[in-house]
């Protein structure tokens, strides 16, 4: 993207003044280098978002923003239903409530070398990954509805986890306001046998080592030290979320004109929050959030099983669980007043600062953990929400490295087998059913996650706490 299109507010903030149909400005948080690398489509998409009815303050793009569907990935926008605000299926994205959960293990890096191979094999055996993989469960209609209503709380009822897991999950494991009856039979059918599966594409499970601590007090509060071993799970609501996204996008496109909404791009499909289809979408989308929370909870259980088999003294506890494709009702400051808004985060992580009531008590004084997925060859990060994140972008931060190369380019540049060997020589074990899948996810296909989190920190969206590097990566 050309920087000449933007007004430079600071080294880490760029603005697009309202013009033509824009109702509010668009603000991009990024370094100059990241802006230059950013797809020109991000400009177009964030301008479109800023033109939607009822949008509050500004449309925001996070430092890892790239071309998405309607909304840019890395897009954040809040809407007020009293001002005709909308909810957008594209603004949530297809993989509803995709997110990251990080588990502490109580193990240290020196514990890993003797068990690394067997742990990698055990994780790969226990956690279904890749195309066509099936979970342990085959849910009845009734069980599906319970899962969609109660999320991780439902998974606990089945014995997959402990109460303390819920405490460390956004929404305490259960998204309120879910309407299983708003979810189509098609969406339910796609999920029936997929609970507790990782999926494919950019989804993964990693065993990681804490290689750097940037903020000792926050790290201490999060229970992490230099040299600790942690596990991170990145996946979402699987086929169910996608089916919901697809169906509502289609319906919202068809109904938009009837609500007087002019769509500059069909993928931006949206409907008034206060409309039958808007309300139905919110009910279905919340059910999909529950599906993702239950899914990550079951996978947590499977990870525990795998560890118990290999190193029984490991004690796996949840550090935190974040979702980065959601629309949630939150209280935010707008024009000096606190008000309830519907905030879309598409490829963006909620990042509440210290003392927010939604943060678990043990972490409240510190701020919300913000879990950032990297690539299998580089690094991931644990960040924390800052006091100013509320003012900057409705308490939102980046979500990952962000792709910079297409899958096609990646497969031309790398061979899966070669990449797996190369990573193995660096001590990183990959387990995947598909070598082409590995090539498509080559670390070089992504932006430098270090640069992305630095930009987030500079912009005041979140602050670095720890850097993690992978030892084992299970890829779908």
């Amino acid at each position, binding site marked *: 993207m050309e920087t000449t299109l933007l007004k430079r507010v600071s080294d880490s903030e760029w603005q697009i003044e309202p013009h033509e149909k824009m109702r509010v400005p668009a603000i991009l948080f990024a370094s100059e280098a990241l802006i230059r690398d950013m797809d020109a489509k991000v400009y177009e998409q964030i301008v479109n978002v800023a033109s939607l009815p009822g949008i509050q303050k500004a449309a925001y793009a996070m430092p890892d923003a790239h*071309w998405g569907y309607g909304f840019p990935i890395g897009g954040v926008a809040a809407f007020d239903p009293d001002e005709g605000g909308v909810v957008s299926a594209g603004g949530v994205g297809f993989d509803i409530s995709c997110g990251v959960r990080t588990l502490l293990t109580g193990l240290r890096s020196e514990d890993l070398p003797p068990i690394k191979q067997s742990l990698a094999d055990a994780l790969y055996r226990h956690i279904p990954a890749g195309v066509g993989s099936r979970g342990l469960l085959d849910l009845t209609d009734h069980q599906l509805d319970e899962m969609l209503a109660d999320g991780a709380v439902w998974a606990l009822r089945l014995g997959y986890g402990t109460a303390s897991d819920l405490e460390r999950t956004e929404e305490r494991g259960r998204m309120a306001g879910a309407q299983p009856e708003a979810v189509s039979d098609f969406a339910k059918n796609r999920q029936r046998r997929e609970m507790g599966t990782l999926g494919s594409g950019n989804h993964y499970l990693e065993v990681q080592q804490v290689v750097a601590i940037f903020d000792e007090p926050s790290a201490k509060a999060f229970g992490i030290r230099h040299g600790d071993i942690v596990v991170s799970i990145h996946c979402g609501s699987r086929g169910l979320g996608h089916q919901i996204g697809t169906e509502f996008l289609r319906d919202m496109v068809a109904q938009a004109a009837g609500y007087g909404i002019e769509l500059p791009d069909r993928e931006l499909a949206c409907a008034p929050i206060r409309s039958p289809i808007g309300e139905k979408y919110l009910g279905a989308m919340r059910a999909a959030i529950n599906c993702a929370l239950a899914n990550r909870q079951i996978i947590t259980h499977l990870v525990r099983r795998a560890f118990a088999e290999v190193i029984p003294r490991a004690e796996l506890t949840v550090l935190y669980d974040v979702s980065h494709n959601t629309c949630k009702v939150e209280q935010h400051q707008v024009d000096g007043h606190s008000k309830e808004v519907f905030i879309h985060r598409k490829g963006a992580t909620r990042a509440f600062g210290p003392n927010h009531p939604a943060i678990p008590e043990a972490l409240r004084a510190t701020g919300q953990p913000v879990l950032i997925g990297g690539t299998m060859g580089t690094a991931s990060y644990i960040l924390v929400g800052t006091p100013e994140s509320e003012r900057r972008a409705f308490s939102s931060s980046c979500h990952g490295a962000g792709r910079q190369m297409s899958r096609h380019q990646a497969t031309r540049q790398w061979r899966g087998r070669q990449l797996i060997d190369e990573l193995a020589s660096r001590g990183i074990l990959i387990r995947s*059913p598909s070598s082409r899948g590995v090539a498509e996810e080559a670390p070089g296909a992504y932006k430098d996650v270090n640069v992305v989190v630095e930009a987030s920190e500079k912009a005041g969206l979140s602050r670095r706490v720890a850097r993690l590097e992978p030892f084992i990566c299970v890829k779908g």
Partner: protein
Amino acid sequence: MAQAQADSRSRWEHFTHGADIGVRGIGATKEEAFEQAAVALIAVISEPMRVAARREITIECEAADSEVLLVDWLNALVYEMAVRGMIFGRFAVRLEGIRLHGTAWGEEVDVARHEPAVEVKGATYTSLFVGQNPDGSWIAQCVVDV
């Protein structure tokens, strides 16, 4: 991954879209373009030539226009493959206005033989186009989310 088949009139290809992939079917008729777009969809997952035609599934769709119909057709295939644990390799499409009658032939996913690289989560409205080239051939394309 094969970029495209032999340069006959009826063929498929992939095009680039950020993190995802675009699928494009080209044919002498709109029907053929729809069939080829489906082959392109399969090629995102695996090599279509590796899929044996052991079972036949019929698909019916209806939409307001040809473009939405293409998205519906591809999404119906994604759905059928997901719930049946199948992968398709060959397709036949018959169009009656905005109504599509489709047949897909395939088999159960065999990870060892098909080596599926990635699940397609769905077809999208991005770079969606159904229309004719100046030479009269038809194009049916959109980006799929993986």
